[in-house]
């Protein structure tokens, strides 16, 4: 397998994008990645589009073929990848192997979602369709309630408090203020969302024990990467950002089938596989983007990925270690919490964020001396997880 590099990245600000259709967002972002790489007339051999909801929310299928048409990328091979909220990383994984195997040279991955057109209760239902149809969905379960049930057990087991969760939100909101692409640009304080008596109105419970500011927003948006053989980076005069490791793992669909529901096995295994392939250890990572659809997940994932021992993620947060200036910055771009979570786009957005970091292009949210980066994409409720490790080689 040859080395694969991220030659170009593209992103549009996440948020409420009323004027853009899903195809508009995918097309614009795809072109941005192509232009960023500066590939000129070089042909693109493969296209992957990552998306979860178009068939349900937009009554639209065949997105990849439609994108090839919009961008006149014929006769490129193309597929739409649906893996719930892990669609983005899945698309990157597929693109990676297409290039690594030598089957394709240049592969474009565009990930997008349009979720804000539909009313919140329908969007909630759409996201819930990924739960177990008989054992969970029929009860009206929502992802926030799955996270709530998980959080209740995790907090009890490891002593994670409401304040820890609020601190994740505050940190990520502060980081989001530095990221022009973030959906949410709003500073929040522990006082306003937790400690003050008025916080019961500012930050009501949405799925106990989780509150309003424990959940990411519903966003529209798209992100893209262009992959190619690593040696092309020099040719294009771009920094050589290599995908050093990719790991993926699955777990049971129904939460109740897991022996220990607090054990995010898929995160652990996917991360271990990625580290093994990259021949790196968690301590070698300078910057990480994890999947904080809910604040509890940032803490839990940071442990299961190997950055902290189980039960010590909250302490690391308290000590400021996961801040941009800390020794293991997590979600310097605001994470899903502030950057936003157009579900299909998130996996690629995390990789774009890491690429910016490794290139030194992250502007106000730049982490110093970022050479090795880690990105996690959490599909379903932890039943399909993909970890990716990127390193700067030149």
């Amino acid at each position: 397998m040859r080395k694969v590099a991220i030659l170009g990245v593209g992103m549009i600000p996440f948020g409420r994008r009323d004027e853009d259709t899903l195809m508009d967002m995918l097309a614009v972002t795809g072109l941005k990645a192509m232009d960023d790489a500066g590939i000129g007339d070089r042909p693109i051999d493969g296209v992957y589009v990552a998306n979860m909801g178009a068939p349900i929310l937009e009554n639209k299928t065949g997105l990849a073929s439609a994108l090839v048409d919009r961008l006149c990328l014929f006769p490129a091979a193309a597929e739409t990848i649906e893996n719930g909220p892990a669609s983005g990383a899945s698309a990157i994984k597929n693109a990676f192997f297409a290039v690594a195997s030598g089957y394709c040279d240049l592969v474009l991955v565009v990930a997008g979602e349009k979720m804000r057109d539909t009313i919140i209760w329908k969007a909630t239902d759409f996201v819930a369709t990924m739960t177990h149809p008989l054992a969970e969905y029929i009860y009206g379960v929502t992802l926030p309630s799955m996270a709530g049930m998980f959080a209740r057990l995790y907090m009890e087991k490891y002593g994670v408090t409401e304040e820890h969760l609020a601190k994740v939100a505050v940190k990520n909101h502060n980081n989001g203020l530095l990221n022009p692409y973030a959906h949410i640009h709003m500073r929040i304080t522990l006082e306003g969302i937790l400690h003050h008596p008025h916080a019961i109105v500012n930050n009501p419970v949405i799925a106990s024990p989780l509150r309003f500011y424990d959940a990411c927003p519903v966003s529209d948006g798209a992100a893209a990467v262009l992959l190619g053989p690593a040696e092309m980076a020099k040719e294009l005069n771009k920094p050589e950002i290599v995908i050093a490791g990719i790991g993926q793992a699955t777990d049971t669909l129904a939460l109740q089938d897991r022996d220990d529901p607090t054990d995010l096995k898929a995160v652990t295994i996917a991360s271990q596989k990625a580290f093994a392939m990259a021949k790196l250890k968690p301590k070698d990572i300078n910057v990480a983007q994890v999947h904080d659809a809910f604040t509890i997940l940032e803490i839990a994932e940071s442990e299961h990925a190997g950055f902290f021992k189980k039960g010590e993620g909250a302490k690391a947060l308290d000590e400021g270690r996961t801040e941009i200036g800390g020794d293991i910055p997590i979600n310097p771009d605001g994470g899903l919490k502030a950057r936003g979570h157009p579900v299909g786009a998130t996996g690629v957005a995390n990789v774009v964020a890491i690429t910016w970091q490794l290139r030194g292009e992250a502007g106000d949210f730049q982490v110093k001396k970022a050479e090795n980066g880690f990105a996690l994409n959490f599909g379903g409720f932890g039943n399909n997880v993909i970890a990716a490790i990127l390193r700067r080689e030149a």
Partner: protein
Amino acid sequence: MFVDMELEGIMRPPELPMPPYPPKVVTMATGQQMVIRQVRREDVPAILDAIRPTLDIERDFYDVVGARLYAELLSWQKYRAANHYCIIGQIEGILVGIVNGRMYTRDVGMSLHTMTIERGLRVGGHLFSAKMEYQIEYLDQKEVLIVAESPIGMRRFVIDFELEPRPDIPHELGGVPSTALTRELWFKHRDRLVVGDRPVPKKLMEVAEREIITPTEKLINEKIMGEKRMRSLL
């Protein structure tokens, strides 16, 4: 504008006694404080300046709400609407939300509109509760009729407050059949929905009363949301 007070005597509707709403201050998620206070007729022009831009915004029925709110406030200002009140929310003097309503009769209230800067700050939650607090706890009404132009707003009210249907009493705004917030429903839910400290500290009140500042994108982003500089065009 010249006003013939003799003619006004004939034109102006009789008013029910309406005790004032005592202003209060709320701490927001941003850590800032929002002053919630009832306004007087003299304040209407400043508020209309803030509403005017919404007349061209189609999404979320801003244009309908804006147009109606504009008309209601203007009518009230010119003494052509009876028993009307308006309560606003201000952060550092910047107008972040407006709610209004009327006493339909001594016992029945008519909730009219809620308009806020929509930034996830829950200004609408605080202000809507404030006007229900006013109509039930200060105006001592038995129930308040509620409808909304936005289906999202309507559904939220009906579900959050467990509103009772009142299809036989048409709401002044028309649209969906009326629903009612009764005293019983209010007191059942109010503790999780109404917060605020009284009295408002003097300095905060001075800033609020000095000027009702129209919320521009720049002001909202910088003063309220905490942006250090404007997001560049991407």
